[in-house]
């Protein structure tokens, strides 16, 4: 889902020949690095002018020397600032998912393939504060810069600005990178509701027997969606075909976090409550299953399961996937 692109950014893209999205890794080669004086740089020009006038008026030869030395230094700093950022390689790093309302730490990997150490490379996203890092010789560094997350789902950063003003702050060299940076935002957890009772029965399945997990109550035809844990292997070995074990009782011991059981009518509130439940259940060490209108996740526990559930919540009803 592309964010709304304003005219200024569009023109900027055209001038700087940025074609989105770019394939990582990006190399900041000479053609895509631009350099312009900063405000400080223009103030220096004014200072130099005054110094020159002073030298002329009082016939100060050494005044000329100083003024010209400073001016030459400024010119030299163009080259230094440029080379501080040129030929760096930018790649996507591993960004941890966060909850809405938190700061995402977008990870970028900067690699310095040259034999020159780079200092104070800045990364800026839109109007946020920049983050600075060094890029030592022939090393890769991971830089994390924070972005506030307000909506659930995939947060996409389409353009980040990589810049530097090292060493003298007189010139700003930059390049815009259109890497496909993204971060998954889970809905903000609502911790106010207590976990539901165990054994909330399925609405979809028939009500013949309560389906639980512990007391064996019979066999039925295997269906593909059945968990392999419940397959009656011995029966299969006896060539009775694939059959699924059924259990009763202890249906009360299954924790189901059920969309349909929620009272509120607002989607986001429901998601928030479910999210809070997931975290609580995981914290308690319980097994829990998730039922959403579009998918069902069988009871389980652990980090991977938690992330799957949270991801399902995050992406619920949003039309993009990857």
């Amino acid at each position, binding site marked *: 889902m592309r964010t709304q692109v304003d005219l200024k950014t569009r023109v900027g893209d055209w001038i700087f020949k940025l074609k989105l999205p770019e394939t990582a890794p990006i190399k900041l080669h000479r053609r895509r690095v631009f350099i312009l004086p900063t405000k400080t740089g223009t103030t220096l020009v004014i200072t130099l002018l005054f110094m020159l006038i002073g030298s002329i008026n009082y016939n*100060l030869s*050494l005044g000329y020397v100083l003024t010209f030395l400073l001016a*030459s230094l400024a010119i030299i700093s163009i080259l230094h600032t440029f080379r501080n950022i040129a030929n760096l390689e930018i790649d996507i790093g591993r960004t941890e998912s966060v909850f809405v309302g938190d700061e995402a730490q977008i990870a970028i990997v900067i690699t310095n393939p040259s034999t020159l150490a780079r200092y104070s490379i800045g990364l800026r996203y839109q109007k946020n504060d920049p983050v600075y890092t060094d890029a030592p010789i022939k090393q890769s560094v991971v830089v994390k810069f924070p972005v506030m997350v307000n909506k659930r789902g995939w947060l996409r950063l389409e353009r980040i600005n990589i810049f530097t003003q090292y060493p*003298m702050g007189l010139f700003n060299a930059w390049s815009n990178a259109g890497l496909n940076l993204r971060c998954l935002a889970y809905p903000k957890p609502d911790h106010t509701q207590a976990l539901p009772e165990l054994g909330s029965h399925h609405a979809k399945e028939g009500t013949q027997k309560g389906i639980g997990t512990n007391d064996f109550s019979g066999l039925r035809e295997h269906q593909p969606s059945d968990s392999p844990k419940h397959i009656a292997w011995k029966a299969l070995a006896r060539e009775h075909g694939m059959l699924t074990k059924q259990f009763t009782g202890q249906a009360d011991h299954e924790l189901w976090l059920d969309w349909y059981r929620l009272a509120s009518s607002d989607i986001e509130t429901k998601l928030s409550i479910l999210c809070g439940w997931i975290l609580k259940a995981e914290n308690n060490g319980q097994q829990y299953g998730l039922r959403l209108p579009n998918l069902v996740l069988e009871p389980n526990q652990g980090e991977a399961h938690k992330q799957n559930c949270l991801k399902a919540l995050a992406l619920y009803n949003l039309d993009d996937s990857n």
Partner: protein
Amino acid sequence: MTRTNLNFNNLLWLAGAMALIILPHISRLPIWVSLLSTASISYRIYLSRTQRALPNKWLIMLIAVLSMIGVQRSFGILLGRDSGIAILVILLGLKLLETKNQRDVSIIIFLSYFLLLTNFLYSQTISTAVYLLFTFWVVNTTLINFNLFTAAPGYRQRLKISGVMILQALPLMLVLFVFFPRVQGPLWGLPSDTRSAISGLSDSMSPGSISSLGLSDAIAFRVNFERVIPASADLYWRGPVFVHFDGKTWTPGPYIEAKQISYKALSSPIDYQIILEPHHQRWLFALDLPGMLAPNSIITQEFQLLARRVIHDRLPYSMRSHIKYQIGEVLTDRERKSNLQVPRNSNPRARDLAERLKKESETERKLINHVLRMFREQKFFYTLTPPLLGPQPVDEFLFDTRSGFCEHYASAFAFIMRVAGIPARIVTGYQGGETNPYGNYLIIRQTDAHAWAEVWLKDEGWVRVDPTAAVAPSRIEFGITAALPITEPLPLLARKEYNWLRQVRLSLDAVSYTWNQWILGYNPQRQIEFLSQFGFRHINWQRLAFMLMTSLIILIIPLSLFILKDLHLTKRDQVEQIWLRFCKNMAKRGWPRHTWEGPADYITRIQITHPECASLLQAIKETYINLRYGKSADQEMIKMFDNKVRELSTRRL
């Protein structure tokens, strides 16, 4: 990894840099200015260390306004050169107290650069230049500090980076210095401001005037002779001439410009160039007798050269003189009267002596010789520290103390002459000078200051008589160090025993002479001279600007290549580039590489069709595979690979 940049360390560096810049100014500023500035800076450091809040903006502004008033009272004016610098120093300190963000810091740093420049208003010697270059280096590093947002690199590395940048900037600076079109200042009238006192000759002479200069080895001027340097005994440098005597002090008559002046030259002219150190007076020195006017100067009836404007800057001028001459053939009545003037009722014993000698001498010449013989044969002493004289200095000198320096002798002599009816006047200036073998020029220092007399004789005109030559002839022949014993308080380095130190000093002075001529004296005239040496004619500012631009561009290209060389490809990239070149070359000849072909297969294919180059191709294949897939490649192997590929590209296929 953001880090606020206005941290303690950076502020400390900034304060240090500012201190270095202000330091040379301290001796020239009122104490309260230096104290206020130091206090502001220190307080800011303290606040940073203790993380306290900065003072109120209005308080700072109040202090600023009060300081302005203070400066106005200390200096007399608010916008002069020295007062302006005082204001700058104070404001810089106060601004530091106000610094909250990066922008404030850059303003301070740029003002610091400007303050650095102001140091040159007072001194442009080599040592000042070296000190300020060092300070510039530190300020530059401070600027870099504020543009580094992480801990790396360390401070020593930062100094190194800063130094390297300055070195890289030097060639550009030289080009700008040589070619930038020079305009002769001042662009507007300089505001009159207080000048620091400089020791030197004054516009009056009394006992002690000249001997007080004996302690100073400050350079008065330097002289470059076109041919041979004349003998020391001929080197009388004419300065202020004094005509009026009040019994103790001699003062000049009115400076009347001589519209027409005549002299008879009795020897061939000597041409030379004087480089005069600024003495904030109008007189120009010249070897007796000056035969021409310097630019923008006048000459008085007493043959004294005066510049039209006060000399505030080092001034070079060419001059021509005749060592043997005749002047003043005719003496007007007014001249006679003013040169015979003696104060009433002063120095009675000397008067009696003069009248007695007049009776005893038949001719004027005999009278003069009588007095000189008296100085020579009787117990008269020549010393830098004679006893102090009272209200009748000539009497006391001639009869009581009998001990004096050149001004005592000249004054007493002239007085006697006048009483005896011979018109006489005092000429002050310098005598002799030190030859610097390292540059073949003459150095005249304040310690060479001298006073002598001129008397008017019929048929001869004004004739120089130097009584010092009678009492201490070695002074005239060899200079003051030869004339005085060790016990006299001569400047340390003038003494004979420190000869090796003198040699060092002389060679340093030669360096500083060249420095003065070519760096400090690089005005529009000198620029034209310098550039015409290289064959550039018809220099105007358009051509200069053009040459400047061209030279800058010519310089920047290799500089860029050098600075950007670290962006060079890694070895692997180098190898790849050469390989790509090889493939491109082959493709041009009709043998492009298929995308699925590995390098070995590709080259083998070419080898089959071009057996004549098989061995070369084999070498290329092996080297490339070794470089690409083998262990670490070294530069030599890459070079060899490169050569082979080039060789192949020149072969006919």
